């Protein structure tokens, strides 16, 4: 890992249990260097969302608990902090499944995103304009109640709302879900842009491995609550297994979805 970059977030061997009995994360460790984009990859139920919740301290409401290990933000333990404290330290999560405030209009949703900011109305207004620039579709729907907008519009709203806080570290949970390909591309361009221009750090959980690895610097692959592979994005992209299982590529190029076999070879890391 690049020594020049200070570690922004360090997750150390955490274990998470839901409802006192369901063990989900079984010792996950990774770190996010400042100013980089890190991707968490993995199949359904691998524990990506849980990991992000553990970082942003949102587990509590799901009756989950970090029972072992630690999460450090720039060397500071975060376990005792409220999610609000974390936001004030610049860590904002975009939750899986959108979670817009249904009764508020799109614009109100975005404005609540700036709740923790203290730099004045004008600055907030400026960010609002920026978000509208990123997602023109939101501007046209600004006065609709969020619950009545389409799935993709809500996703944009959720991302935009997080950006309104001017975060330093954004935890993105499946940002591409339900977005049209063009918009997906745009979202990632925005991520890259913020990352490069403003030095925002990103930790993203993503199923769309293809695009995630294209934009990320590092990647971790989670499976069954454990990290099974890690490395620079480019390395991962070249890994045989990743190619087959996460990118849908075979030696003969992209496989058609029509011709997938019913039985496939086992993943190597499982044996």
């Amino acid at each position: 890992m690049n020594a020049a970059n200070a570690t922004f977030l360090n997750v150390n061997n955490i274990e998470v249990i839901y409802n006192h009995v369901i063990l989900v994360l079984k010792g996950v460790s990774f770190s996010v260097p400042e100013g980089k984009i890190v991707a968490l990859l993995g199949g359904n139920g691998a524990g990506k969302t849980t990991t992000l919740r553990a970082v942003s301290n949102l587990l509590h409401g799901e009756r989950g608990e970090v029972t072992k290990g630690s999460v450090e933000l720039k060397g500071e333990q975060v376990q005792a902090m409220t999610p609000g404290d974390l936001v004030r330290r610049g860590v904002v999560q975009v939750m899986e499944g959108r979670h817009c405030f249904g009764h508020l209009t799109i614009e109100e949703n975005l404005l609540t995103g700036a709740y923790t900011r203290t730099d004045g109305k004008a600055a907030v207004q400026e960010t609002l304009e920026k978000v509208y620039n990123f997602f023109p579709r939101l501007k046209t729907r600004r006065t609709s109640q969020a619950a009545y907008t389409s799935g993709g519009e809500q996703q944009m709203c959720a991302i935009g709302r997080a950006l309104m806080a001017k975060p330093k570290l954004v935890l993105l949970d499946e940002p591409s879900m339900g977005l049209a390909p063009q918009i997906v591309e745009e979202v990632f361009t925005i991520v890259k842009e913020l990352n490069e221009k403003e030095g925002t750090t990103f930790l993203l959980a993503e199923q769309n491995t293809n695009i995630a690895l294209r934009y990320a610097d590092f990647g971790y692959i989670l499976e069954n609550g454990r990290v099974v592979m890690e490395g620079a994005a480019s390395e991962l992209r070249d890994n045989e297994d990743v190619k087959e299982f996460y990118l849908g590529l075979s030696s003969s190029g992209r496989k058609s979805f029509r011709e997938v076999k019913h039985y496939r070879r086992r993943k190597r890391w499982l044996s």
Partner: protein
Amino acid sequence: MSRKIGDVILDLQNISLRFGGVKALTDISFDIREHEVRAIIGPNGAGKSSMLNVINGVYHPQEGKIFYRGEERRKMEPHMAASTGIARTFQNIALFKGMSVLDNIMTGRNLKMKTNILLQALWLGPAQKEEIEHRRKVEEIIDFLEIQHIRKTPVGRLPYGLQKRVDLGRALAMEPQILLLDEPMAGMNVEEKQDMCRFILDVNDQFGTTIVLIEHDMGVVMDISDRVVVLDYGKKIGDGVPDEVRSNPEVIKAYLGAGH
């Protein structure tokens, strides 16, 4: 088994749908043939989900006509649509959170269950027999979708991707003639999408179910659909076989972007 695409089963003519000032759909016409896989694509907010809602009676369009098997369909409530053989899955998962996977899929059999409430309360012969009979069907679906291991888990605890699969299972349990799928593969990785495609194609093959599919993954759409409708801002901007649509400049501009 080979598929044979048949006649038009559902014909939508000049459909318009408004919510207050928002025009969700404007004068849209297209048809769906028996046994085909029909995809609907378009940018976010184009009106795709609204289209499905119109087809199964959740929304009532202000204008337009719908012909189902050649007959015009008047005001239609969702449960009536269901009883005529239209099933669907949802973009924002709409499973019954408090119930197990098995029970969720069993609700899909509801229309086919006939015993009355009294027999059910007493758990008498016919009720029990019926229950077992339908259970067998549901187990077939569970096997088919490869979700045996989570049969008894409450769906609320499942990861997103598996929930989508259960959602599909519930729709399949209805043994529908037309299956409407709203982004069934969102939030899945390639491997899981491949599984999902296989399920969809198998259903289409084996039971001859007509499939209407909304999906943002162009790879999937182009690979498995027979014909594609493209919507943009509530208007139809393209309709045809995948290759045709892919090369339609308007579609490229509005939706696909230069990359594809």
